[in-house]
């Protein structure tokens, strides 16, 4: 399938949006406005954007704690997203969850699993519902390279394979789990090569190439919908920043940082679209301005949103029903 110009522009725009949105949140954290830590997916935008654009609104997703643009593509409003990160009443979880617990039921966003091992079994269960009810939807489960070494990966990938579940497993291999490099943590170089243990296709993709990611996920989605079962896709990319806003990030060689920043997914894609004549300086500025405005509005909305009443902190512990 060829990717339309329109879609390419969308990809570009979302990548820029993802980056500016997270830079904005990062700054707010440093200003002390965000409780706890914040994790950016800066450098990984092509993976998050490519994978999510391959979905329909009705498909389910489990995003990671980075790449908040995934939520936006799925349908979340950037203002309410930022509000949740700030812990405000207007946020998706009314301030209860924060950045590592964003969920948006209206757009079938099942939410981040902050205990990283949980994403796999939850995805299996969601895919099971789709298969049993024959909904024509898939589940996209995203996870990091570090998380790929956890036990539930093994349990859930095997189960998804024997049950032919409509799930697409997308590893955002950004090379590190905090300070732990995947190269040292894993006995083999590619997460996707573990697909052989589960009798499913495994693909290594350049995770900084938004179109490649998009195509690979799109095909896996179609395969899943056709009853072909799950696929394991590994997107090789890089976490350009520290692990979180707390991390001074001293453990990575400068050459490595430099090499990857030369391969920045946005710059690269911009260049490609320029070459193809799809983008020019004017258009770029236009998009940048539009995105800037969108992020500013999101920030404004969030910052001007009220704090939730403290007493609301004990609401929603149980779903009320006749038994209470």
């Amino acid at each position, binding site marked *: 399938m060829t990717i339309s110009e329109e879609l390419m522009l969308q990809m570009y725009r979302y990548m820029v949006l993802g980056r500016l949105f997270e830079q904005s949140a990062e700054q707010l954290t440093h200003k002390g406005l965000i409780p706890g830590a914040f994790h950016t997916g800066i450098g990984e935008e092509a993976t998050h954007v490519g994978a999510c654009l391959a979905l329909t609104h009705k498909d*389910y997703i489990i995003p990671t704690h980075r790449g908040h643009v995934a939520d936006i593509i799925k349908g979340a409003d950037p203002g309410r997203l930022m509000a949740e990160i700030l812990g405000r009443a207007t946020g*998706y*979880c*009314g301030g*209860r*969850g924060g950045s590592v*617990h964003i*969920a*948006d*039921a*209206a757009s079938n966003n*099942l*939410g981040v*699993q902050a*205990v990283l*091992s*949980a994403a*796999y*079994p*939850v*995805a*299996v*269960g*969601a*895919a*099971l*519902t*789709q298969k*049993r*009810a024959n909904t024509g939807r898939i*589940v996209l489960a995203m996870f990091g390279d570090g998380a790929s070494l956890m*036990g*539930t990966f093994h*349990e*859930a990938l*095997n*189960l998804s394979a024997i049950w032919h579940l409509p799930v697409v497993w997308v590893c955002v291999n950004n090379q590190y789990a905090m300070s732990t490099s995947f190269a040292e943590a894993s006995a083999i170089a590619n997460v996707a090569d573990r697909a052989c243990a589960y009798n499913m296709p495994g693909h290594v993709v350049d995770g900084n190439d938004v179109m490649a990611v998009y195509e690979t996920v799109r095909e896996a989605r179609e395969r899943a919908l056709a009853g072909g079962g799950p696929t394991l896709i590994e997107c090789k990319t890089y976490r350009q920043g520290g692990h979180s806003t707390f991390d001074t990030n001293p453990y990575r060689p400068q050459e490595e940082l430099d090499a990857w920043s030369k391969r920045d997914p946005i710059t690269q894609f911009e260049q490609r679209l320029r070459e193809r004549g799809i983008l020019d300086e004017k258009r770029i500025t236009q998009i940048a301005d539009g995105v800037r405005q969108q992020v500013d509005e999101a920030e404004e909305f969030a910052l001007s949103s009220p704090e939730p009443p403290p007493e609301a902190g004990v*609401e*929603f*512990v*149980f*779903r009320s*029903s*006749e*038994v*209470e």
Partner: protein
Amino acid sequence: MTTREITFRDALNEALQEEMGREEGVFIIGQDIYGGPGGYQGAFKVTKGLAKDFRDRLLDTPMIEQTIVGAAVGAAMTGSRPVAEIMFEDFITLAMDLLVNTAAKTHYMTAGQYCVPIVVRAACGAVGVGPQHSQTWTSWFMHIPGLYVVLPSTPYDAKGLLKTAIRDDNPVLFLEHKKLYNVKGRVPEEEYEIPFGEARVLCPGDDVTVVAIGYMAGLATQVAGTLRDQGLSVEVIDPRTLAPLDLETIFQSVRKTHKVVVVAEDCKTAGPTAEIAALVSEACFEYLDAPVGRVGARDAPIAHNVGMSEYILPDAADIHEAVQRVIAW
């Protein structure tokens, strides 16, 4: 109401059968619950015969407790109403993250956007399979906001509470004591549910209150019978659900009897009797004529050897003794 006598196992089985019939979204996920042609039908045979009508809703998995509970959560978040079976409660340790961090917190964390209507059934209690197949842990789960904890002690309660558990929109831990599976009791032919948070007075009395949980409720009733013959009137209360906990029934009884013993099979230290004793000691402070008596297992793993395990576990004699101790105070 027409009733007949059936086992605790069959009562559970009927609840599953009826709820699967009632609602398409209900399915059962676990190990060996279908169990091939001929059928293992569950380690304790609770899913016996269900394959006849619901073969495609008995989902046998490999031995992956973490993923069993987690898959139930994901299915529930997307509209299913799964019942997960964990063979032995001891193995729920493998699924603690999914149960405690995911199932119990999702409704809260998403401000009610998602709910997690799952039932996790597990067999508890000691029958000689050694220290890793014998636990009864309830206080761990009472401690978790967002989780209901149910321990039926009779076939009637087993059926009614399991139906309620399946229909409830919250995650429920449903514990079945192994020694109860073959116990018989009267169960109505007609449809019924038992609301959570309503204790049952198994036997009314005026002299002393015994709050006894799960398998201990039956033992306490026996002890009450023995003591009645000795002229002592014991009120036995089975809370049936530890979360929510029907404090009113307990408090009322204690305000009447002024003496109370709380009994559970769990290890005594930090077990469920601690919370109940603390609540009663606070709420009934001026009514209590003796300190709250507590009966639980000695603080040890449950040995394989029968004599040792009987020594460790609480029994009728221990309840008897505790009642006499509060009476003699």
